[in-house]
C-alpha cells in the first residue's frame, strides 16, 4: 500500500467509520439480521402500544383459543393473549441479555486489558481466576444461586454474566498481547502518556471490533439460557417471558400445538440474527473493505509467430503484461516489459517499490500471487514459451533449469524440518537420485557455499542458524541442479551489510562456476554496480532504460534513472557542528 498518492481527494474521517457500518449493511446477511433485530427490539420497547391486551389478563373462554377474535395469535393455556405476552416477554428477555452482556463485557474486557498490558503477576492471577470460573458448571451454579437468592431472573442473569466474563477476558487479553508491542504504543509512552490513557485510547481502539462480535454472540447465548431457565419454571411467574410461554405451550402441546411456534420463533429469530450479525461484521473485517469480483478472464492474445531470438539468448521477455483483479477490471502491475538475458549474463532489474520488478520476476517463475495473471506478451525461455506452457511443464523447469533465491531467507525455510531434509527432498524429486547420493551432494553444496560446519547445518533446524547462513542454504538449494537461470529477488536486502558483501561474492563465484544467467532484482544501485553486467531500470510497470552497467552509471539516459542515481547518498562533505545559539532557537 506504499504507493497511495497524496494527490487523491481527501477522505473525511467520519465517512470512514460510516463506511464500515454501511458495508456491513450492504452485506445481505448483515442487512437482514440487523432489520430482524431492529424489529424485535422495537416491538419489545413499544410493547404497551403494540399489545392490544394486558398480557396477564385472563379470559377463561379463550383458553388455548385459535387466532382471531381480538387474540391475534390465539390464547395460551390460561386464556391470555399470546401476541401481547410475546411482545411484553421480549422486554424481560432483552433486559436479561443486556445485564449478562454488560456484566460479562465490563469484567472481562477490563481484566483482559490490564492483564494483557501489564502481564506478569497480574496476568497470572487473572488467568487463574478466569480458568477457575470456566471450570464451574454454569447451569448448576445458576440453579444454586436461584435457590439461595430468590426468584429474580435478573439476578440469575447477572451471575451468568460473571460466568461468561472469561470469554471476554481471554479474547481481550490475547488481542492486547498482539498490539502492545506495536511501535505506536512505544511512541505513546515516549510522549509521556499515562498507562491508563494508552490502554483506553490506543489499546481499546484496536480490540473493539472483535469484542463487538463476541458481545453479539454472548447476547444470543444469554437469551437461550434465560429462556431455558424460565422454561424450567425459574423466574417470576407473574411476568410474561418467552421461556415461560414455551413452558405453557409445551404443557398444552396436544391441545394447542401451534402455540409453541410463537415463542420458539421469537427466540430462534433473535438468536440467529445476533449470530449472523456477528458473522457479517467478522466477514467485513477479514475482507479489509475490498470487495473484488474476479474480472472476466481474457484469453491470451493470439500467438503471433515469434521472431527467433538470437542463439545465445536464454530468456526473452516480450511485451509482458501482468495484472491483478481490481474493482473495475484488471489492474496492471507490469505494463509491457521487454527484457532479454544471454547465457551466463547477470542482469540487474532495479526499481523502487511498486515498480513491478518483483512481479516481472514472479511471472517468469510462474509464481504470481493468487489472482495474478499474465494478460499478454511472451516469456521465451530457451525456445519454450512459459506463458503458454502448462503448469506442469513450468513446474518441471522450475527448480531444475530455473532456480530462485528469495528475499526473506527465514520465511522460505520450513521451521518444522531440518535443513538437510529440505535440501535432500527436492534433489531426490528433481534429479531422481537416491537419498544417499542427495545427502552427499547436499553436504558438498553446503561446504561450497562456505558454511563453516556443513554437517552441523545439515542437521540444524532453521531457527538454529542466522539469516546470512539461511540465505547460503537457499543458494545451495538453488544451484543444486545446476540451473541455467537463477532469479534472485532482493537476495541481500534482509541481511547485514558485511553479510551482504559475502553473499554477493558467493553469488558471483557460483555464477562463474556454473555459468548461470542471473536475474538480480534489487532496489540497491550499489548491488547492481557490484554484481551485474547489464541493468534494466523499471518504473510504474515499464522498463525505462536498459544498458550495460558501465554505461548506465557513466551516462544515465532517462530522467528517472538520473533522479534515482542522484538520490544515492554519496561521500560528500560532512556536516560541521555549530551549537544552537539561544533558547529561542528551539521552536
Amino acid at each position: 500500500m506504499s504507493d497511495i498518492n497524496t494527490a487523491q481527494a481527501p477522505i473525511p474521517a467520519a465517512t470512514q467509520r460510516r463506511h464500515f457500518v454501511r458495508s456491513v449493511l450492504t452485506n445481505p446477511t448483515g442487512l437482514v439480521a440487523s432489520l430482524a433485530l431492529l424489529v424485535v427490539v422495537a416491538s419489545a420497547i413499544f410493547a404497551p402500544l403494540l399489545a392490544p391486551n394486558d398480557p396477564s389478563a385472563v379470559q377463561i373462554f379463550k383458553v388455548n383459543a385459535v387466532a382471531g377474535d381480538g387474540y391475534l395469535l390465539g390464547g395460551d393455556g390460561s386464556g391470555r393473549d399470546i401476541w401481547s405476552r410475546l411482545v411484553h416477554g421480549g422486554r424481560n428477555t432483552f433486559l436479561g441479555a443486556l445485564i449478562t452482556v454488560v456484566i460479562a463485557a465490563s469484567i472481562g474486557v477490563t481484566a483482559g486489558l490490564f492483564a494483557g498490558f501489564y502481564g506478569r503477576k497480574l496476568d497470572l492471577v487473572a488467568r487463574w481466576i478466569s480458568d477457575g470460573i470456566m471450570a464451574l458448571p454454569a447451569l448448576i451454579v445458576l440453579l444454586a444461586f436461584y435457590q439461595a437468592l430468590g426468584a429474580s431472573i435478573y439476578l440469575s442473569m447477572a451471575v451468568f454474566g460473571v460466568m461468561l466474563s472469561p470469554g471476554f477476558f481471554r479474547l481481550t487479553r490475547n488481542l492486547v498481547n498482539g498490539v502492545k508491542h506495536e511501535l505506536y504504543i512505544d511512541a505513546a509512552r515516549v510522549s509521556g502518556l499515562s498507562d491508563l490513557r494508552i490502554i483506553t485510547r490506543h489499546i481499546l481502539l484496536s480490540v473493539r471490533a472483535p469484542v463487538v462480535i463476541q458481545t453479539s454472540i454472548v447476547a444470543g447465548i444469554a437469551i437461550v439460557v434465560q429462556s431455558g431457565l424460565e422454561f424450567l419454571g425459574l423466574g417470576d411467574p407473574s411476568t410474561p417471558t418467552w421461556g415461560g410461554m414455551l413452558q405453557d405451550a409445551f404443557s398444552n402441546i396436544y391441545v394447542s400445538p401451534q402455540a409453541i411456534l410463537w415463542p420458539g420463533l421469537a427466540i430462534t429469530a433473535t438468536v440467529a440474527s445476533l449470530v449472523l450479525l456477528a458473522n457479517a461484521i467478522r466477514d467485513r473485517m477479514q475482507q479489509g473493505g475490498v470487495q473484488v469480483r474476479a474480472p472476466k478472464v481474457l484469453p491470451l492474445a493470439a500467438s503471433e509467430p515469434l521472431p527467433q531470438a538470437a542463439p545465445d539468448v536464454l530468456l526473452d521477455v516480450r511485451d509482458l503484461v501482468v495484472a491483478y483483479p481490481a474493482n473495475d477490471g484488471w489492474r496492471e502491475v507490469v505494463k509491457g516489459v521487454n527484457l532479454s538475458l544471454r547465457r551466463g549474463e547477470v542482469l540487474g532489474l532495479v526499481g523502487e517499490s511498486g515498480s513491478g520488478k518483483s512481479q516481472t520476476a514472479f511471472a517468469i517463475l510462474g509464481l504470481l500471487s493468487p489472482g495474478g495473471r499474465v494478460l499478454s506478451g511472451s516469456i521465451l525461455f530457451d525456445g519454450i514459451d512459459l506463458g503458454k506452457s502448462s503448469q506442469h511443464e513450468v513446474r518441471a523447469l522450475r527448480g531444475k533449469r530455473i532456480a530462485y533465491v528469495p528475499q526473506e531467507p527465514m520465511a522460505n525455510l520450513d521451521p518444522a524440518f531440518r535443513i538437510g531434509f529440505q535440501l535432500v527432498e527436492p534433489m531426490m524429486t528433481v534429479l531422481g537420485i537416491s537419498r544417499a547420493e542427495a545427502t552427499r551432494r547436499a553436504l558438498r553444496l553446503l561446504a561450497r557455499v562456505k558454511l563453516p560446519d556443513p554437517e552441523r547445518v545439515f542437521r540444524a533446524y532453521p531457527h538454529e542458524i542466522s539469516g546470512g547462513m539461511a540465505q547460503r542454504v537457499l543458494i545451495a538449494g538453488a544451484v543444486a541442479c545446476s540451473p541455467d537461470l537463477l532469479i534472485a529477488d532482493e537476495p541481500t536486502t534482509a541481511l547485514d551489510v558485511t553479510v551482504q558483501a559475502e553473499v554477493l561474492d558467493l553469488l558471483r563465484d557460483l555464477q562463474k562456476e556454473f555459468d548461470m544467467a542471473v536475474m538480480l532484482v534489487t532496489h540497491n544501485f550499489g548491488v547492481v554496480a557490484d554484481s551485474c553486467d547489464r541493468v534494466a531500470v523499471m518504473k510504474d510497470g515499464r522498463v525505462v532504460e536498459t544498458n550495460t552497467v558501465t554505461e548506465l552509471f557513466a551516462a544515465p539516459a532517462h530522467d528517472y534513472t538520473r533522479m534515482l542515481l542522484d538520490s544515492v547518498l554519496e561521500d560528500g562533505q560532512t556536516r560541521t557542528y555549530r551549537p544552537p545559539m539561544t533558547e529561542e532557537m528551539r521552536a
Partner: protein
Amino acid sequence: MNDQILVDCRDVNVHFGAHHVLRHVNLTIRPGETVGLVGESGSGKTTLGRAILGIGPVSSGEIVFDGENIAGVPPRARKSQAAIQAVFQDPYSSLNPSMTIEDILTEPIIARRLASRADASRQVRKLLDQVALPSDAAERFAREFSGGQRQRIAIARALALSPRLIVCDEPVSALDLSTQSRVMDLFIEIQERTGVAYLFVSHDLAAVRHISHRVAVMRFGEIVEFGECDQVTARPAHDYTKRLLLAAPVADPARQAERRAAFRALEMTA
C-alpha cells in the same frame, strides 16, 4: 564545556537475562548535534536508543540529561518529561491505524494539558507544514499515506512537544531511495531550524555520514569507535569500521570493484 553536553551516557550496561547486550557504553550528544550510531543487527544500537528514551531497561550506569539521571526512568517519571522523542523504523506500525492524523498529532499535547483541544488542532496545521504535508492530511487515517508520508507524520508527532533530542531508530531504512534522501533532508532542515539534537541509529553508513556530526560504531554491545563524522566514515581507525565501510557497495562499477578487492583483502587478514 560540560554545559555543552545534552546527553551523557556513562558506563551504561544492559543485560537481557544472561546476555550482556550493552557493555560499558559511553556516549555524549551535544545540543543541536547529530550523533550517528552505526552497527549491524544485534549490535545493541536499538537497545541504547530505547534506554535513552526510557522504554528499555538499564542494568547499570548513568544517562544524564539536563543534570538528571534518566537511566531506567520511564518517560512520565522524568523531570524533563517530553524532551526526548522518537521516530521509529517501521512507518506502518508506528502510527495507530484507528486514529486520524490529527488525533495522533494532538494526543500528546492534549493528554499533557499543554493546550486546549482547539489550540492543539490549530498547531496541527503548523506541524504538518513543517514536514511538508498538506493540511487536509489531518482528517485522514495513516493507512491512506505512503511510507515516506507516514514517516513525515511520525516526525511531526515527535516535533509536537518541542523536544531537545529525537532518537531516530533506522528512520529511513524502510523507505525507497528517492524518498529516503528527501526525508533525510527534512531531518537536516528541521535540525537547523529548531536546534534539536538527533541520535541517528542506522545500519547504513552512507546515510549516517550524510546527516551526522559525530559517529559511533557499535559491535556486540560495545562502542568500538566514536569520533568526528568525516574521520570515522572516511578514515576509520578500527578494523571493524573499515569492514563496515568497504562492505557497503557504491553505485560506481569501477570504484566498487576496487572496494570489493579491498574488502576481500581485509577478510583474508582478519
